């Protein structure tokens, strides 16, 4: 089971993650797992089940579909073996 490395970066006034440096996640997971990971750390528990509360962007340009495979996102957009993911709590970039 291949693990890939994600580095998260807050944008648009989102809080920084506490005690999270480089994150490792299975390449077989769906992108929704990445969104869930962020929700757990950023949102009070009562908001977690609301849809679209954390927005994740690649290259500050587009949001991968929650059903994409993490391995595919990594293979297409990694730089130096790391995937940079920007996140915010309000929708950015349309």
């Amino acid at each position, binding site marked *: 089971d291949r693990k890939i490395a994600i580095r998260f970066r807050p944008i648009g006034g989102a809080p920084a993650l506490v005690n999270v440096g480089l994150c490792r996640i299975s390449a077989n997971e769906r992108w929704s797992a990445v969104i869930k990971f962020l929700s757990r750390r950023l949102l009070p528990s009562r908001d977690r089940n609301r*849809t679209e509360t954390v927005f994740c962007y*690649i*290259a500050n*340009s*587009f*949001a*991968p*579909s*929650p*059903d*994409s*495979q993490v391995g*595919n*996102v990594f*293979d*297409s957009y990694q730089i130096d073996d790391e995937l940079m993911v920007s996140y915010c709590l309000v929708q950015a*970039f*349309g």
Partner: protein
Amino acid sequence: MEYTLREKIWNGSLSVRIVLAPYELAKSGGTEELLINVSRISYFPLYMSRILDFFFCQGNDGLKINMSDWWLEFDSVPINWNWPIGLSYDILTSLDSSNMESESESKSPNPWTLVLHGNDYPVEQILTYTGESALKSFWLQQSKEACFIRDGNSKAILSLSKKDTDTLWDGVSQNNYKKFWTIMTTVLPNVEHLKSVPTRLYLPKSNDVLQKLVKVVNEQGEFQSVGSVLNQYLPELFPSKRTPLIARPVLHGILLPMSTPLAPLYSFGLYLDGFLHISIVIIT
């Protein structure tokens, strides 16, 4: 040439038979099925209100229908609402078009029979649906992603005026060729300026999709062929670049010759979200 091929692909359609799940029959007053012609490149949510109206709105005014409850199923597999209809058909029916010529009747199901459900939405298997705005937002993100792959950034889509973005979406949601392609031609780079070809490969009998940054030209400076891309990324299914031995590539229901240059194919064969969605079909 591109223009007629774009139009031909745009006009591709499927005949679908929608059968209401038995437990819903009481609500519909006994209406059991609907035959409907759908555009291959379009999405099921764009037909859903018409479908639900047919089943539930004939003399049944008081019934409250919540769009997000409804989903379609083929052979016990829930249909991804966010996939183009033709892609779902090609991958789920595993159409091996090469059989067609040798047999008087093709094996591909026609009409394609789907079961309509209003209960037990399969949240673990398909994305939740919150209405047409969910489709629009999904489509826009995919379009920006495809743009990023083509150009190395998403500026061409991001810098469209609101009016042009709306026209592009109207082209999708109203199935209007002219609206879509008038804007899309201003966004698409010439084939020789493509950085990579936005391509997804769908594997048979699994939920697996492969997406890589597919190079436009090979080391000799020629356009990469479909066969060489398949051989590079799926060597077990495509041990040869030239001859399909184990599996075949299908796009818009059409068997792709292995020698087809991928980048020129992209310029007319792309789906509405800017990707080439290629189904892999095992040779039977």
